[in-house]
């Protein structure tokens, strides 16, 4: 009888100790395997660097910071499964992610159940924040601005009137392509074709259609894993018209997949500015290179800032909570109230979780094999659409 008594007391003490553990975990979720792993890894490493740098500060407050990376393989089902695991780990108080809007939308609904805050460095589909979930935020712009910005660039700056539009049938790619088409046609341009494809290898039928239509420009809403091989086959078949896309092209993998000669001259809009656009990025670039041995790219910097947003909110929440571990709802509220001078600019959220003023960059691939060489053509700063 006494033995059982001790056992029960021991388990209860252990349970109590665990519940009050001083470990705070921040999760990242992005594709760490598969065709989009290059971008996903930038998100993980950017956040990891911010967390490593904050560890001493948090130790002084009495907490041990940890990073928990999740691989969603760019697949919504895997993302939702990961989200379910996240909400069951009581130490996870925030998420930096995801890369794909198609994963973020269902996964964030799982997180909303327990108010686990999500700060996205990369999701651009408007639906992500239009649902007005209190735990969802993003520090980048939206496709309902990115798409029209591209359309205006093509119409006004490049002065082209006939565009062939392709998309990858995901929430991101199709959303971007539709926004582009709406604005381009409203301006008076002609979209000669609007094609969706999940094809990863054989783009010959589409290329033959392009040959028949002979457009002045091809706009492809998609990610480099698809656009890379497409561009390679397009150029190899002798078609020289310019190509434009969105931030899915913002990776050094695009040039590697397409071949530098074929990729050269492609335009893309991105919500993650190039390293050269941020005056304070130089020191960060060096720290990143020293720690990971590779170059930080656009999304890595945004992930760094996204993690810093969560860290700042955590610090405020801990102080407001009298030095004790905050609840997830408290962290989510603090994130919304954050005003941070990040490397990417001022970060402040509106009532939907959109960043108050987002930047959009129009870039052109230089074809040197080095992403940092890509030319910055235009910077647009726009407030998020209030709907």
């Amino acid at each position, binding site marked *: 009888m006494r033995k059982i008594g001790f056992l029960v007391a021991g388990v209860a003490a252990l349970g109590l100790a665990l519940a009050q553990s001083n470990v705070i975990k921040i999760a990242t979720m992005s594709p760490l*395997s598969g065709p989009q792993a290059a971008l996903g890894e930038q998100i993980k490493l950017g956040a990891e660097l911010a967390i490593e740098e904050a560890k001493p500060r948090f130790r002084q407050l009495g907490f041990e910071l940890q990073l928990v990376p999740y691989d969603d393989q760019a697949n919504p089902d895997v993302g939702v499964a990961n989200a379910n695991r996240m909400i069951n780990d009581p130490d996870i108080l925030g998420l930096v992610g995801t890369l794909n809007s198609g994963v973020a939308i269902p996964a964030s609904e799982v997180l909303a159940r327990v108010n686990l805050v999500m700060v996205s460095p990369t999701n651009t589909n408007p639906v992500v924040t239009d649902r007005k979930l209190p735990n969802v935020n993003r520090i980048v712009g939206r496709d309902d601005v990115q798409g029209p910005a591209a359309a205006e660039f093509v119409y006004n700056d490049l002065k082209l009137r006939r565009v062939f539009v392709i998309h990858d049938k995901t929430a991101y790619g199709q959303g971007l392509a539709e926004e582009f088409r709406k604005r381009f046609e409203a301006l008076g341009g002609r979209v000669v074709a609007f*094609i969706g*494809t999940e094809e990863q290898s054989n783009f010959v*039928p589409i290329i*033959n259609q392009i040959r028949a239509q002979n457009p002045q420009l091809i706009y492809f809403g998609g990610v480099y894993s698809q656009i890379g091989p497409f561009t390679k086959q397009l150029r190899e078949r002798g078609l020289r018209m310019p190509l434009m896309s969105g931030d899915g092209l913002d990776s050094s993998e695009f040039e590697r997949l397409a071949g530098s000669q074929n990729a050269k001259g492609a335009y893309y809009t991105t919500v993650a500015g190039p390293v050269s656009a941020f005056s304070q990025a130089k020191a960060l670039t060096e720290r990143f290179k020293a720690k990971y041995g590779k170059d930080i790219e656009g999304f890595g910097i945004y992930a760094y800032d996204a993690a810093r947003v969560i860290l700042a909110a955590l610090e405020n929440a801990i102080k407001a909570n009298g030095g004790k571990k905050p609840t997830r709802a408290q962290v989510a509220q603090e994130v919304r109230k954050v005003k941070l001078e990040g490397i990417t600019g001022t970060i402040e959220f509106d009532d939907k979780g959109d960043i108050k003023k987002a930047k959009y960059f129009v870039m052109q691939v230089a074809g040197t094999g080095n992403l940092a060489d890509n030319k910055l053509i235009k910077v647009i700063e726009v407030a998020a659409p209030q709907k």
Partner: protein
Amino acid sequence: MLEQILVLLPQVLFDGFILGFIYAMIALGYTMVYGVLELINFAHSEIFMIGAVAGVEVFRYLAPLIPNGYLLLLVAVVVGAAVAGLTAILVERMAYRPLRRRGTTNRLVPLVTAIGVSFFLQDLVRLIEGLWHNEFFLRMRTMPDLEGAFTLFGGAIFIQTKSVIVIVVSVLMLWGLTYLVNRTKLGMAIRAVAQDLTTASLMGINPDQIISRTFLIGGALGGVAGVLFALIYTTINPYVGFLPGIKAFTAAVLGGIGNIPGAMLGGLVLGQLENFFGTYLPILTAGNFGTEYKDVVAFLILIFILLFRPQGLLGQMVKEKV
């Protein structure tokens, strides 16, 4: 609309042949194994994929040593065929032969096994590539002397050197196989086992040995198809065999399953249909159905043909005598 179609037609027909020959070579693997074993070897799509991966690795490691693109491709084809053929033999030994020994009369059992082997091979290759190169979405290295292109008929057809290579190699392989099956002793043995295994064994043919060799030949052809696929489409991954495998199997059925010329014909027909509708569907349906429906149309035509000629284009109606 008609003018739009006609302008592109020569190019579309040419591109259809490239796809068609690749499907034909994969379809041969399915049809030969069915001929001798009455088994649909669903793992054959992964044999094709293994050939493609082998081709990529040969290009990756031997390109610095062999600057001549054509020679490098020859080596890649040989290595791809060998690796794929050996994998096919291994699969037969380890997965299908024990079932034959047990004497299962239920043909679903080997079928389900084949599907299982298919999944296993996909993730085995993913594991190996993941451990070896830390990535499993692979790029085929480009060789400058293979990257040429030219036009015919005043620009009506744009032809890449690679496309010509694929067609030439495919024709050689198909001709070689026809010669093997019709003019050599091994070919006669294969046809004998396909016709009637018991009687063939009574005639002094070792059925196990012939079956192994059939898997080797079919696998090797699939491997060559894989290397050519990697050459043309450059990005491959462990899951790249699934869809072409299903299409090639359907092509084999279209031509008459078990019938070798049928598989070649079926592959060509399916390749042409897929490419044709892939290009023309938006034009024919005024933009209502996009390119992504090409497979739907190709398979609908297939179903239609099988409705009226269930034995396939070149197959023979086998009447079961009670």
